[in-house]
């Protein structure tokens, strides 16, 4: 019985020579919009028991440690999670309120550190350093020297690409 010749050149899979997009073709089946919870074929038996499968879209899953996974994320490991304005405002105000020499009831999003809160210039330096630690930033000295009020700090941090 003659044996079949085996070609070593035969590729195991078809090569796709012309990718349409920079995407893995295996992943192209994912719908663009997140899936709504849907019920797949409820199987009812005589007792009336029903087995329901609820599909929860992955993009809305919140893990126990509070981290949120999104179905689509870019390759960059940083700089792609921008803070929204309200979060920046809240955290800046928290930092300013916890400063020992500040009366927390006076703190609003548009206070000036020295004019409204009665701090001196060295206290302002300390607050800016606390803000840097809070948002994991490193602000150049000359720019940090310009930040002397809450609106300026909020604006600077909100527009900083590395704030997190």
């Amino acid at each position, binding site marked *: 019985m003659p044996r079949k010749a085996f070609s070593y050149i035969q590729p195991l899979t078809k090569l796709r020579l012309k990718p349409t*997009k*920079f*995407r*893995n073709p*295996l*992943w192209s*089946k*994912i719908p663009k919009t997140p899936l709504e919870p849907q019920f797949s074929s409820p199987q009812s038996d005589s007792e009336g028991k029903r087995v329901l499968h609820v599909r929860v879209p*992955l993009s809305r899953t919140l893990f126990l440690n509070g981290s949120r*996974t999104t*179905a*689509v*994320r*870019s*390759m*960059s*490991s*940083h*700089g*792609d999670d921008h803070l929204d304005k309200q979060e920046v405002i809240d955290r800046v105000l928290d930092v300013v309120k916890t400063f020992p020499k500040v009366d927390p009831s006076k703190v609003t999003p548009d206070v000036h550190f020295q004019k409204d809160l009665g701090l001196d*210039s*060295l206290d*302002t*330096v*300390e607050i*800016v*350093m606390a803000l840097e630690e809070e948002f*994991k*930033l*490193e602000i150049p*000295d*000359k720019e*940090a*020297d310009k930040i002397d009020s809450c609106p300026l700090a909020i604006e600077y941090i909100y527009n900083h690409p*590395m704030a997190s």
Partner: protein
Amino acid sequence: MSVATASYLVRRAAQKERVRILYRRALKDTLNWAVHRHLFYPDADALREKFEANRNVEDIELIDRMIAAGEATYNKWRHPDPYIVPWAPGGTKFCRNPTPPPGIEIIYNYGREDND
């Protein structure tokens, strides 16, 4: 306002800025030397005391000399390996994962689409 007063005020403003920046750098350096917070707070208080002690000095030449002395002290005791935020130049993650060109993305779905 006379020219002399204006030049005095300009010089005072420059001095104040130098003091602020010196305090900022020195405070950061204190954090470099004292890693833990319970070590950092007394050091920071001591540093603040040093600045507060000369709060009411009026002589402008004396202020200049004191700032120069302060900067010399700062340079002498500067930390050889300071903390740098990871993404900044000199940090551990500097240029590690540059932003990919637009249009490329990874979709993390953990192979679910093949099993559905």
